[in-house]
């Protein structure tokens, strides 16, 4: 055993679900792109096809075929993501995780404070790693919106494209403007998630990418460093 001061940063629940989500999102991304390249155009409303007006024409050629074998894998990964997400949210409320790690303190929710923390992030200011042992207000708001807004939106827009689901819950599609609107919003949500993931990984680099990755694997943060 080394004499390194080790602080327990992430619970087993957070670590297991984090990496399962990472892997399933990667799988969903690859298979989702496989489906999208079969018809790389986005529409608004219920209908849209070659010969109708589109919202976005992605600059890639139509590739016939990949949607057929990408779809089943897409739904397999979707199941893994949804079940993991349910375990994480249930566990997060049963343990102090959501309350202590994610919900911001009321006093931190002032606009000026949020602005200041955001500016620190943008200016790439190095923190004293011993000071901050928990997430700041910007991190908390970012994680909360990813967990409780972005991921549910991705699931919703995905289910809104399912004929079985809309036969029971037609509002899934109609509230979004229709089948094609749901498909477009599904892609928009994924782009937002990717932007979050990029910022997330870039921010990890600020205090050492690998020590943060190690903390998310082993649960321990050497030198009391904080993870994000």
């Amino acid at each position, binding site marked *: 055993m080394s004499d390194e001061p080790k602080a327990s940063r992430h619970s087993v629940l957070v670590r297991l679900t984090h990496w399962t989500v990472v892997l399933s999102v990667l799988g969903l991304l690859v298979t989702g792109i496989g489906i999208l390249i079969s018809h790389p155009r986005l529409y608004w409303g219920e209908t849209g096809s*070659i010969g109708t007006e589109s919202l976005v024409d992605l600059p890639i050629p139509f590739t016939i075929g990949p949607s057929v074998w990408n779809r089943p894998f897409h739904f397999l990964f979707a199941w893994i993501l949804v079940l993991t997400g349910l375990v994480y949210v249930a566990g997060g409320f049963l343990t102090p995780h959501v309350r202590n790690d994610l919900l911001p303190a009321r006093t931190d929710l002032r606009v000026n404070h949020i602005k200041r923390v955001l500016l620190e992030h943008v200016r790439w200011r190095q923190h004293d790693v011993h000071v901050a042992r928990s997430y700041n207000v910007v991190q908390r708001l970012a994680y909360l919106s990813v967990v409780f807004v972005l991921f549910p939106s991705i699931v919703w827009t995905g289910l809104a494209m399912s004929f079985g689901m809309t*036969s029971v819950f037609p509002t899934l599609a109609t509230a979004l403007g229709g089948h094609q609107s749901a498909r477009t919003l599904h892609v928009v949500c994924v782009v937002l998630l990717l932007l979050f993931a990029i910022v997330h990984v870039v921010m990890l680099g600020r205090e050492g990418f690998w020590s943060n990755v190690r903390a998310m694997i082993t649960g321990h943060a050497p030198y009391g460093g904080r993870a994000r």
Partner: protein
Amino acid sequence: MRRPLTRRTFLTAGLATAAGASGLGAAIYSADRYGLIPPDHSGVVGIGETLTYATQRLLTSRHSLAREFTRRDISKVAPVNGPHPRDEKYVSLLADGFRDWRLSIEGLVSRSLTLSLDELKRLPQESHVLLHACEEGWSYIAEWTGVRLASVLALAGIRPEARYVVFEPFANPNQSGSVVRVLWDSIDMADALHAQTLLAYGMNGETLPPDHGAPVRLRLGRHLGYKNTKYLSRIIVTERRDYYRKSRGTWYGGI
């Protein structure tokens, strides 16, 4: 800090494993009894397919209806994935207005039927304006006119052990004309008896166009486009799960 493996932990772990395994076994057994296991349940992908199919069957029941639209919503463009067959048989049937075409209903039925297009059109007719979406991503709205599959099956009389209905189109040679591929497919009884499942011979107020599957195609309200078999010639009622699909993609098209 490793705990030694005592007899108690060994027994507890063993009992827990046995209970888990038998619980899973019981779950699979009852899921199969209630028709929640799809034919393509095997393999890694089968896990997702089974979860999707079972969840949707528990949610949708036999009666949930796909969204219906109005005639004003009908799309001006209705694309197809591939034109109609160009082989001699199809061309001659088409030229003759499908007078010599017959649809047979066989398998687990009280009496096998052979229906001409005129006989099919004399059965109670209904129309539904539905969204048609390809798994690739595109979609259109059209009105489909035909007879409910349930009405035809009632004429033939379904035997109680029936579990699936198989749809066989007539030979559909590909563009090169050399390879004959007959893509047959099947649906479960919940979809076969569903109120929006039609044997459609009309589209947007006109005769079903050849590219859309003339003379008769299957039209399902709660499935993606690829499940709507075109150019029908044979309907087989069966209890066999292995005799289900000779086509690409997943069996259940509700998602």
